[in-house]
């Protein structure tokens, strides 16, 4: 359960971005979270409420964009999304796919704002 720490980092990053802008209301914070990032979505949503309290993000929503696990299948010579995120196996040819391309992201994409 390290999502509270992650939520505090998200609030800090958004706060730094806000400091560079004029007066705005933040309506949402958009993040991308891959299933291999080690962060649980529900716990992050819950923690965000606590981390944002008393900050300019207090009334902002946290919008989480999923990033499906994508790996490189060297047999198909193509990017593939395994059917089970945990099992790195090509859904087409069943080969093992050692090279992860996406799916471990934990990133603040941007802020949705309205001018105050």
């Amino acid at each position, binding site marked *: 359960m390290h999502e509270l720490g992650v939520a505090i980092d998200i609030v800090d990053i958004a706060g730094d971005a806000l400091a560079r802008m004029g007066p705005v209301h933040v309506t949402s914070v958009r993040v991308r979270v891959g299933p291999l*990032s080690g962060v649980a979505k529900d716990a992050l949503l819950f923690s965000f409420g606590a981390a944002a309290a008393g900050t300019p993000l207090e009334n902002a929503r946290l919008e989480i964009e999923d990033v499906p696990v994508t790996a490189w299948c060297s047999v198909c010579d193509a990017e593939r999304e395994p059917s089970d*995120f945990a099992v790195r196996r090509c859904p087409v040819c069943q080969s093992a796919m*050692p090279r992860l391309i996406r799916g471990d992201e934990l990133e603040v994409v941007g802020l949705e704002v309205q001018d105050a």
Partner: protein
Amino acid sequence: MTTRIVEVRQNVLRKNDLLARELRRRFDAAGTFVVSLVSSPGSGKTTLLEGTLCALARTARVAALVGDLATTRDADRLARSGAPVRQITTGTVCHLDASMVESALADWDVGGLDFLFVENVGNLVCPSSYDLGEHLRVVLLSVTEGEDKPLKYPTIFNTADMAVITKTDLARAAAFDETEALRNINEVRPGLPVVQVSARTGEGFEAWVRELWVARGRALTSPLC
């Protein structure tokens, strides 16, 4: 009122990642190869480390940092090997991060070390997100935990560079299916190197220590002095 999107595009753990990169640079410059150990509580991290410190201490300068929520029991145990050991007590925090490693090393000159081991808090979830500046992350799986552990906790296996199956002396008593365990590791992380050891009997230990030296040679270009 118009709504607009302001792009930020920043890795959430950037602060930790930058500090970890800085630590790794420091370790590289010092010729110190840093190995972190992650696993669930009770997989045998401290026992593996006790044996490893003893085995390496004959030919190399070694030290360890150990993380736990409370007590200095692990540090006390490891100190018996004669190697310098420090305990990081995290309070209630479920993982180590780069800043805890940095603080623990603040007044410690790692320049004289060939190997530094960092034993993480026993936890198969949270430690996976935090880069500690290590060169090699080793995930332990003991034979008593069940062969399907990698399938249940894929994230930690995904961030590891090597897996060690521990307590192999108990394999028969635990009805451990080695083939199944190796298959599961390979399913979640194809190609992850696996070593099998029993710290109690010493079986597999030579291969484990050899792997550490090989990994050190690969990671560090500076010669061992």
